[in-house]
């Protein structure tokens, strides 16, 4: 059998994985029976997958599982408190506006190389979402914290991808805090005035 009749490697992988059935599987089996080259490739693939099957996940100590749910609950509580503290930073006069600038600088700095922040999506979100301003402000506060304290900037990813976060956080504020937040956001809106851009895109007007 000539080399050009030999089977595609991807198809052989599917065959070895048992994903080729019926007449096609029978055809491949017949080909393999008559073609030493493809037979060798199939044997090599099977050997590879047999070895891969030896890969083990290390089992944590029993205490890890015993305290797993409690650990998750503890983290949830801590995270909620941490977020609440961050949202309160918005209430500090001038901080949010400064933070918004930092956010824009960070986004520009990241540029087109690593599209962790989907600028198009953010722009669309800002233009259409009722919580967009809150999203921006919270992300901005996080960005400011990152800039100041040198933490990894993962908070940006979290908030700009999932806009519902801020709505949840806002519901955790008491009435007085919520009123303050609304007033602060209104002030920020006024202070922006003219259009600003993120990565050359007009994001609000």
């Amino acid at each position, binding site marked *: 059998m000539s080399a050009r009749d030999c089977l595609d*490697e*991807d198809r052989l*992988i599917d065959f070895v*994985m048992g994903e080729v059935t019926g007449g096609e599987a029978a055809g491949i089996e017949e080909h393999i029976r008559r073609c030493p080259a493809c037979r060798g490739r199939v044997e*090599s*693939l099977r*050997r*590879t*997958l*047999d*070895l*891969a*099957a*030896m*890969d*083990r*996940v*290390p089992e*944590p100590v029993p205490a*890890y*599982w015993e305290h*797993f*749910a409690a*650990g*998750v609950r503890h*983290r*949830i509580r801590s*995270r909620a408190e941490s977020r609440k503290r961050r949202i309160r930073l918005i209430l500090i006069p001038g901080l949010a506006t400064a933070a918004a600038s930092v956010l824009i600088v960070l986004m520009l700095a990241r540029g087109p190389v*690593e599209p*962790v922040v989907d600028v198009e999506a953010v722009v669309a979100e800002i233009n259409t979402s009722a919580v967009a301003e809150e999203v921006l402000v919270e992300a901005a506060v996080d960005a400011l914290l990152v800039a100041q304290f040198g933490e*990894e900037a*993962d908070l940006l*990813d979290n908030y700009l991808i*999932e806009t*519902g*976060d801020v709505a*949840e956080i806002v519901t955790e504020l008491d009435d007085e805090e919520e009123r303050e937040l609304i007033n602060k956001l209104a002030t920020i809106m006024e202070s922006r005035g003219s259009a600003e851009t993120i990565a050359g895109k007009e994001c609000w007007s």
Partner: protein
Amino acid sequence: MDELSTRFAHGDEGVFEEVVERYSRKVYGLCYRILRDEEEARDMAQEVFVRVYEKRGKFGGRSALYTWIYRIATNMCLTHLKRRRIPTVPLEAVEGMLEAAPAGGGPDYSRLERAVSQAMVGLPPRQRAVFAMRFFEKMSVREIAEATGTTTGAVKANYHHAVRRLKEMLGEGGST
């Protein structure tokens, strides 16, 4: 959609503990297979459920609950890997470990396991994630596409690349 997923989708507050109980080991396993670091996987598994809790209002039941959770886990692990320096594994290192297996007295399984583990580290993270879900979790291509937020074609391509890479690193050296 099973009962647990339905209750979760409807915002049943009491169901979260059951979700943790049912999926924690699977999530830990997936995290380990992507991160290849036990300590990080233990930490990440808990973080995944924190995120699941925080995002619970976004689960609409359009996909299976476990693929939704896997999607969160996969995204978090891949994001984490982007930030840590991923050690590169030269092909020669794996081959060396395989060749050092004793000729007589049967295969040295601990050495083989280490070689296999090193080969897994040598896969690009996304291929590692797809391979883990397809090969170890026996998830369908469609389920993996949902869990990774990509197309079935991309999943197949990632899987094929992963197997070819593993074959390159392990295939010929694996004969005993």
